[in-house]
């Protein structure tokens, strides 16, 4: 009552939030042409959406997707050895959980998304070989492991260094576990020709980005070097690789390279494709890192010299940590585009996700005409993965931006 009597406070009250009608008037009908645009958009939207929904729920024949979803996940990886893929996934889940517990940063979006997707997929009405209690168990364990990792990280004092070692070890362990040993009874060799689907897609993308990272950093430093010869080689490599399409690089590493190696020197086909992805990615990584190096003010280098650090120490301890921190979001962006680019491996006969789709179409005479269903499904898989990654990366960018201020 007293406030109402005070005219000064009355005028200071924040404006009423606009009602839905006011919102519509402001955002959809503010001018005559906007009103026209709105109506037109509604009509187009209605036509497109109703067509899509009608197709997806009544006309589409999803059997090529539902009959055997496991094919899209691992290709023809021996079914008796699938526990190795499951175990690798669980190792990643646990590490992801621990990372979330330790850092509590934007990685939690990734952890929640991974947990949700894997947890939900274990409860879905799965079909084919995935419709078994074992398969569901393997999937359902993952969100639990993420939660366990989260709790462990806060209860036990796991240091950041230990976690880094864990991640690095997993990167070595997982490929070894998936490949196996030729002499072993319990983990026999699974040739990479049997690997397929999302497994290969992720292998190429994650492997490519990780291997290209050190090469890219060296190339970036090389390009900024004051040594003319080093600079020349680095610049030439970066510009040549960036000047040609990825298809030609993959073609080179998969087919042409064999001619340049000694006779009898054979490299596994998947590794050759990985080599192509890595070299391609390294050139772009170098340019991204170089962008980060340019953000370091000269004063930092002068200060490092003043306290007596050598050139090498200055680069390793002062310049690189700051530069790399600045380019993390760009590197995530590069991971997304490399993840999408793995589809090109189909051209050098690698069984990644898209080529599994093509193979499924040919596997049954009834599927021959169902291209739309299969490719829409594959597009959806790529879209979900890329969107989750780019969302996390945007949050990360915001956080890093806040941290700098």
């Amino acid at each position, binding site marked *: 009552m007293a406030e109402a009597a005070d005219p000064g406070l009355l005028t200071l009250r924040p404006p009423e939030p606009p009602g839905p009608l006011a919102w519509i008037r402001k955002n959809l009908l503010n001018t005559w042409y906007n009103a026209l645009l709105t109506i037109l958009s509604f009509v187009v*939207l209605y036509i497109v959406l109703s067509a899509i929904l009608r197709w997806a729920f009544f006309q589409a024949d999803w059997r090529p997707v539902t009959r055997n979803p496991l094919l899209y996940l691992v290709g023809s990886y021996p079914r008796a050895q699938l526990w190795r893929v499951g175990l690798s996934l669980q190792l990643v889940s646990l590490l992801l959980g621990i990372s979330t517990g330790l850092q509590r940063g934007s990685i939690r979006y990734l952890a929640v998304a991974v947990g949700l997707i894997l947890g939900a997929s274990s409860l879905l009405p799965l079909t084919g070989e995935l419709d078994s209690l074992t398969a569901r168990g393997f999937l359902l364990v993952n969100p639990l492991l993420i939660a366990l990792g989260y709790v462990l990280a806060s209860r036990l004092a796991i240091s950041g260094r230990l976690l880094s070692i864990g991640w690095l070890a997993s990167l070595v362990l997982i490929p070894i576990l998936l490949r196996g040993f030729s002499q072993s009874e319990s983990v026999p060799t699974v040739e990479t020709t049997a690997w397929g689907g999302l497994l290969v897609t992720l292998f190429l993308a994650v492997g490519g980005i990780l291997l290209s990272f050190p090469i890219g950093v060296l190339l970036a430093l090389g390009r900024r070097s004051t040594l003319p*010869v080093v600079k020349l*080689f680095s610049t030439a490599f970066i510009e040549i690789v960036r000047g040609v399409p990825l298809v030609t690089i993959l073609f080179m590493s998969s087919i042409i390279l064999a001619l340049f190696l*000694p006779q009898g020197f054979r490299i596994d086909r998947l590794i050759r494709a990985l080599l192509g992805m890595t070299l391609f990615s390294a050139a772009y990584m170098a340019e991204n890192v170089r962008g980060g190096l340019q953000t370091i003010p000269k004063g930092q280098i002068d200060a490092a010299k003043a306290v007596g650090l050598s050139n090498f120490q200055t680069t390793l301890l002062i310049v690189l940590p700051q530069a790399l921190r600045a380019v993390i979001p760009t590197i995530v962006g590069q991971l*997304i585009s490399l993840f999408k680019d793995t589809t090109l491996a189909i051209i050098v006969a690698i069984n990644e996700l898209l080529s599994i789709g093509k193979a499924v179409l040919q596997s049954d005479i009834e599927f021959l005409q169902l*291209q739309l269903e299969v490719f*829409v499904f594959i597009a959806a898989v790529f*879209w979900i993965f*890329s*969107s989750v990654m780019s969302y996390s990366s945007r949050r990360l960018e915001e956080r890093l931006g806040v941290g700098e201020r």
Partner: protein
Amino acid sequence: MARVSSATGAFWRDERVLRAAAQIVSAVLVLAAIAWTVLNLLEAAERRGIALSFGFINLPAEFPISESIIPYDPSKTFGFAFLVGVLNTLKVAVIGVVLATILGTILGLARLSSNWLVNRIALVYIELHRNIPLLVLLFLWYFAVFNKLPSPKDSVVLPGPIFLSQRGLYITSARLAPSGLIFLFALGLGVVLAIVAWVVLRRKREQLGRPTYYAGVSLAILLLVPALGWVASGGNPLVLDVPVLEGFNFKGGLRLTPEFGAMLVGLVTYTAAFIAEVVRSGIQAVDRGQVEAARSVGLGSMQILTLVILPQAMRVITPPLISQYLNLTKNSSLAVAIGYADLFNVGRTMINQSGRAVPIFGMIMATYLLMSLITSLILNLYNRRILRVER
């Protein structure tokens, strides 16, 4: 660089020596690696009888190419076949760049629209296309759309007439009739006169400070002069070439193959999403104060867009736009997956046909590098010009 204590220290602490040594070591390593691979290649070439010379260029190619701008048949040489591939790449790239720019600009402006619905539709389009691999989009367009079109007998007829069928797009084209030269001359004259009128009247407006209706006058010239030419040429300067169904396929008209159609649509819809983001961020980079200042001196919204926002936004937009053009050109190499006869696809067929993997692969790489080089040359020239303007 200052010399560091060379007078007192050992030579391996002398910075000049270290720098020289580092360069020599890296040069030796790189050159040795190159020499090693080349020696391997020479050895393999001798052992397997692979010829490394470019002599094959003048041999007949002996393989068909599904489409070509210049007349091609299998009796033409390998060099000529390669040229066909290069031209096909340029064809899809040039048309693709034009269409992607138009669609991308519309989407970018839609993202800035105050209309919430338009804004969101553009956002969904962009997010959808940026997060799906181009190759999957191409497969969708080629296998699920262009290959699913009805047979020529039941083809979809669009106004034109344009016939859409499994065999591709048959478009009614126009040829110049003998009397058409008069019309063509009038058309050229109309365009020139319209430009002259525009420039002269516009300058006059700036001098006199009163409207000279330059837009209306030049538009009238642009329409009237060719119209007169049309009448003078007897009313039908053009001969229409309408596609006609004969047997199982169409005859006549302009044909676009399904492969070309899928490549073009895929590249355009994909690249447009990236161009939209370039356009949006470029326009947003223009300071809001500029718009407010323009409004306060009384410019209309169209004038604000063309005289204040666009000239400034173009500086931010042009460099990333040009690199998107280059991306589109490089991405056209995915044509190999759906069978469009582009540079890479023809090159690969040439390798299979002739067995000369190394020289042909070198030609492919060199051609793409040349395109990149030209692009970055244009970019550098543009940047230099912009810098000069800013001074």
